[in-house]
């Protein structure tokens, strides 16, 4: 594995600087549940991590490859359903169900998304949106999987193996954190590999990409498959966390939108984008719901809508603030 040595694409110093920040951030995240200890705060943190993970997964197809998919909630749902039903029907452990869900999501996406790869920009976005709606409608009317009523997971004694915890939310937080670390590591590798370069080239110009020997449809399929695999994994995490799944709360249009807006707000196609976008969006959503209660319903998504409109003022997202020459100058100055 000679390739595992650090690949310093631009400047070696940036690599170490980034890693230093990465370690520091990770340590802070490990300690966070002990700084904010309330139940609700833990819930918000789990949601933030889950959407960071989902945002990273979306980023592979939507950010790096530039194919704005608006139907990811369907794959999130497929993941949740697969692991839950496999447990209920066959007694399959949810950890294996998680991978099975990912594989099933890849299979479904290959069949339904492949024809859409010919479409560009908005057409692709709308087609994936429609496909997401179809899958939700199918689940809502599919009696075998519980229809609109959904599925309740049987309660089991809490353990890591059972993937259920009742007395505290902390284990879910750490599981989500490990998943995030995993996807960050994978994206970090992808960014510096042939795959990453190819995906970015496809985003810039499909015509040029083809002329350079890139099989555009194949690489879009690869990107989409990785993306929906992780999206489905997050679905299992969600199902095990809530222990109740139904199409209306699992696969609404808003979930697809949120999965897309998290990375776009942070900066589409950047490693750190989802990690910046998720806290802002999810904290706003969860706290507005908690503070305003039932009467405040609507405020949560009004914020999301307003943020989506506001992105036009900074199409590069929040990370673009850290990429300008002025920021670099300032950064160099504080580092002495």
């Amino acid at each position, binding site marked *: 594995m000679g390739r595992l040595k650090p690949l310093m694409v631009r400047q070696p110093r940036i690599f170490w600087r980034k890693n230093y920040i990465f370690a520091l951030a990770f340590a802070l995240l490990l300690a966070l549940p002990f700084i904010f200890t309330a139940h609700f705060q833990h819930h918000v943190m789990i949601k933030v991590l889950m959407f960071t993970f989902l945002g990273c997964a979306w980023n592979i197809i939507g950010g790096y490859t530039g194919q*704005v998919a608006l139907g990811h909630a369907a794959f999130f749902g497929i993941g949740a359903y697969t692991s839950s039903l496999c447990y209920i029907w066959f007694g399959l452990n949810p950890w294996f169900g998680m991978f099975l869900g990912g594989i099933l999501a890849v299979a479904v996406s290959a069949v339904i998304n492949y024809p859409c790869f010919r*479409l560009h920009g908005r057409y692709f976005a709308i087609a994936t949106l429609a496909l997401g709606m179809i899958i939700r409608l199918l689940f809502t009317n599919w009696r075998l999987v519980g229809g609109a009523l959904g599925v309740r997971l049987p309660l089991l004694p809490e353990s890591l193996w059972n993937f259920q915890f009742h007395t505290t939310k902390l284990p879910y937080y750490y599981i989500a954190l490990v998943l995030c670390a995993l996807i960050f590591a994978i994206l970090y590798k992808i960014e510096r590999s042939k795959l990453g370069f190819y995906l970015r080239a496809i985003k810039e110009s499909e015509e040029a990409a083809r002329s350079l020997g890139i099989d555009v449809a194949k690489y879009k399929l690869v990107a989409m498959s990785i993306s929906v695999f992780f999206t489905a994994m997050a679905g299992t995490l969600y199902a095990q966390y809530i222990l109740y799944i139904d199409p209306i709360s699992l696969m609404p249009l808003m979930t697809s939108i949120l999965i897309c807006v998290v990375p776009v707000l942070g900066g589409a196609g950047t490693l750190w984008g989802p990690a910046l976008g998720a806290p802002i969006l999810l904290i706003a959503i969860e706290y507005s719901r908690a503070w305003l209660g039932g009467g405040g319903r609507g405020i949560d998504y009004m914020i999301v*809508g307003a943020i989506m409109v506001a992105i036009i003022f900074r199409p590069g997202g929040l990370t673009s603030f850290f990429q300008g020459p002025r920021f670099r100058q300032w950064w160099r100055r504080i580092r002495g």
Partner: protein
Amino acid sequence: MSELFIQVVIEGLLWGAIYALVAVGLSLIWGVMGILNLAHGDFLMLGMFGAYWLAILLGIDPLIGLLIVTPAMFILGLGIYKSLITRIVKAPRLTALLATFGLGIFLRNLAHFLWRADYRMLGDTLVGDRVITVSILGGTNFISVPKLLAAGGSLAATALLYWFIKRTKTGRALQATAMNRQSAALMGIDTERMYMLAYSLGIACVGVAGTLLTNFFIIFPEVGIMFVLFALVAVTIGGFGSIHGALIGGLIIGLIESVGGFVGIPALKQALVFAVFVIVVVLRPRGLFGWAD
């Protein structure tokens, strides 16, 4: 059987005409400005609530309310254009797509916040829930008057818009702007004003559709989503930017929904519409009668 089938077709065409008017506004905005107004359904929702509150608070029947809601929606369109859309038009395409979607989400949830998620319905209107009986091919069929009125009104509004675009000077300027903004500007057309006009007209269209819908349809904040998605499908089938394409697309959607629900599983009729959409968009991304793009 055939009697029932004719009933289903009638139902499909009536709904189709309403979808068509929503689609026509969407198509006009796309054709002239090149943006997909995903907030369209939520403007429809606002139009419905407008007509509803006029009826509840001031006792103005939707038929008269039409004369108030339509210009009000036109003015709302102007305001939204001036404050937001001018910027959205200049943004990168996909950011623009998300922004119009965001605008819709904002409006929908604003309605949620102001008026709750309850389903509302107007009780006694001038048209009421009258039904006329017609006999087609020997069978007896029923046509709901409020639906017929909505369909007829939609067709009339579409025809008016079509006439405006094809026959008047301003309409031709709109067409020219749709074909090529730069060239149109060189010809002395104030393209900024054309954009404003196209957007406001598009919103006025859903004002008409929304008001006519309040005569028989439930009113709630999320009502617009299905309409905008169906309109999107209609526009795709008809070809982005084409007015008569949107009309035909709308009628086709109405028929697919109604006949599909009759022949297949009723609960999946919407899924069927989306499936048709995906097939059309994959096989023929430009639709059947596109003007531009």
